[in-house]
């Protein structure tokens, strides 16, 4: 049952639960996560390492394997629930409508094939295409990311880090998807190159119109480019909403901590912030609010129950007893 507003949403994540089954139990890497992404929108997901961001990305692509599974929840993509979709059906969506740009500093490119081959084989895998046409399309894609055509036959090790990342982006958009998930695309690159990549992504978004889910631990990157922001902690979304509002008025202590963690280039010199403690064990998360052991404002209630994500504004929700939710108990 979807109203008209909801049907403009490209992706609707509802109460998703996903993680890893190990000998001693189930690790809830994604614990009851919900968000919306409209067509052409840019959702940034920020959080520390190990908070479940990558699991979320893989879950959306239905790439979880072996002992990693989606336990519960729904992922409505253009009206269809991806969770529980048969693999043959998912294959038609994967990479064609939703694709992913991996962190290419890790070994995301096959070392023994040229980048041209790695681009054309995607095209060939999704339809009968003549070799020459596939090659042309690949060269087009490379052009979009500012890689000259004479690099078509280069091997990954012959490219710089920034170029490799751009190849990954080209690979992700070559079939013209509606949504591209970017998992830490700039993490291993230096700031200057980061900048170029981010600008390129924005430029491509304008011209091709795809939506982006951008996953990172570096909140500062998301400042200018995202429309919506989701802050993840220990498998849960603790703050969510329009990014301008979140930046101007962060509510959750964790968000505030994250924002204090990068220095401003202007203004007074202030003490560097930072968040004490370390991320919790997702196998046995703390009772109550997962952040309470590290929270400077923790109250009694925080130890006992876990706050739910509640709207404080039409475009701003937070999961914290400081702001709302206490009255519901």
């Amino acid at each position, binding site marked *: 049952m979807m109203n008209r507003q909801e049907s403009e949403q490209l992706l609707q994540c509802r109460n998703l639960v996903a993680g890893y089954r190990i000998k001693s139990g189930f690790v809830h890497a994604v614990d009851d996560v919900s968000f919306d992404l409209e067509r052409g929108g840019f959702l940034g997901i920020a959080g520390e390492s190990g908070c479940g961001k990558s699991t979320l990305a893989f879950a959306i692509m239905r790439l979880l394997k072996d002992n990693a599974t989606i336990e519960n929840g729904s992922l409505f993509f253009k009206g269809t629930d991806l969770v529980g979709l048969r693999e043959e059906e998912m294959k038609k969506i994967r*990479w064609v409508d939703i694709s992913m740009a*991996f962190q290419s500093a890790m*070994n*995301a490119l*096959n070392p*023994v094939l040229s980048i041209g081959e790695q681009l054309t084989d*995607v095209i060939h895998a999704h339809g009968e295409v003549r070799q020459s046409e596939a090659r042309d399309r690949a060269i087009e894609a490379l052009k979009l990311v500012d890689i000259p055509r004479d690099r078509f036959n280069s091997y990954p090790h012959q490219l710089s880090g920034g170029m490799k990342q751009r190849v990954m982006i080209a*690979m992700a958009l070559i079939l013209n998807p509606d949504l591209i998930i970017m998992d830490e695309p700039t993490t291993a690159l230096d700031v200057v190159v980061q900048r170029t990549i981010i600008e390129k992504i924005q430029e491509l978004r304008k011209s091709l119109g795809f939506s982006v889910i951008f996953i990172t631990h570096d909140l500062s990157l998301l400042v200018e480019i995202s429309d919506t922001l989701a802050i993840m902690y220990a498998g849960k979304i603790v703050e969510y909403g329009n990014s301008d509002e979140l930046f101007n008025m962060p509510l959750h202590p964790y968000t505030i901590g994250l924002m204090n963690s990068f220095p401003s280039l202007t203004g007074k010199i202030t003490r560097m912030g930072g968040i004490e403690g370390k991320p919790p064990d997702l196998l046995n998360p703390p009772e109550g609010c997962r952040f309470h052991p590290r929270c400077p404002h923790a109250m009694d209630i925080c130890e006992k129950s876990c706050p739910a994500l509640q709207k404080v504004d039409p475009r701003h929700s937070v999961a914290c007893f400081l702001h709302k939710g206490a009255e519901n108990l």
Partner: protein
Amino acid sequence: MAYFARKIGLLLFALFVAVTLNFFIPRMMPGDPAQDLMDKMQGIPLESLEAIKAAFGVDSTDPLLLQYGKYLLNLIKGDLGISISRFPTPVGRVLQVAVPWTVGLMGTATIISFFLGTIIGIGVAWKRNTKLASFTVGLFIFVRSFPYFWLGLLLIYFLAFRIPIFPLGNAYTPQLERGTLEFFLSVVKHAILPALTIVISSMGAWILTMRNNMINVLAEDYITVAEAKGLPLRRIKTLYAAKNAILPSITGFAMSLGFVVGGGLLTEMVFSYPGVGLMLYQAVQSKDYPLMQAIFLFISVAVLVANFIADIAVLILDPRVRDGGK
């Protein structure tokens, strides 16, 4: 091309060392092989005795360095000396007859073993968690630990003695005429058991190596990316996984090719197969030093060359090496 130059340099240096070792070892060992030689040659005419002495380099009247020089010179001329146990056949001739048998048998067996082993290794890694995979791996761990000459004995016992399907030894039935179909079939029949011995005992190593490599490769991100891209399974298995996994094996394969010549010794002994290995053993038994030296040298050269070929193969297959060298 620095990689290439380095490898050639290494090859030449190693050849040099092998040749030199071959010269110096007999002259350094305790015991006096020269004297043994002399004692044996009691009833031989003087000229032949002189020839033998020269061939073996027993002309110890010359200073060592001069002997060494003569030795190198002889080598370049292709003169390997005269065999004592098969007097007056020159060593070169003995080798000429024996080499094809060894290369044919061992070469074929090693290649079969490599291919079968690699393919099974890929399969076992791909379907890791099945019972069949575990069983296969366990089986080959066990089989690989058999001394392979013993395996040969076992095969002879069961398949040639108890149930006489295959012949007990030798390379062919002597009475048959060469060049005929019968002869060819006889050669094949005689080669099956020894080849089987080698294949069974060495396949295990390939299976395990390939399996390990594949498992490591399959955990890499580019495999996940390939699956996400929706590539057909076959392409992932071959161009993404296997092509990367096989690289470390190639060097190993070439090294084993080198051992084709040397390692077949025990198999040839057990099966009385007239190859280089058996010649070496017989040479050792009869203290035929010129033959021993020549065979050892031949084996060393073969190994070195095979190794070199392996390095070149890696150069061709791995684009990373082409550019910088590892």
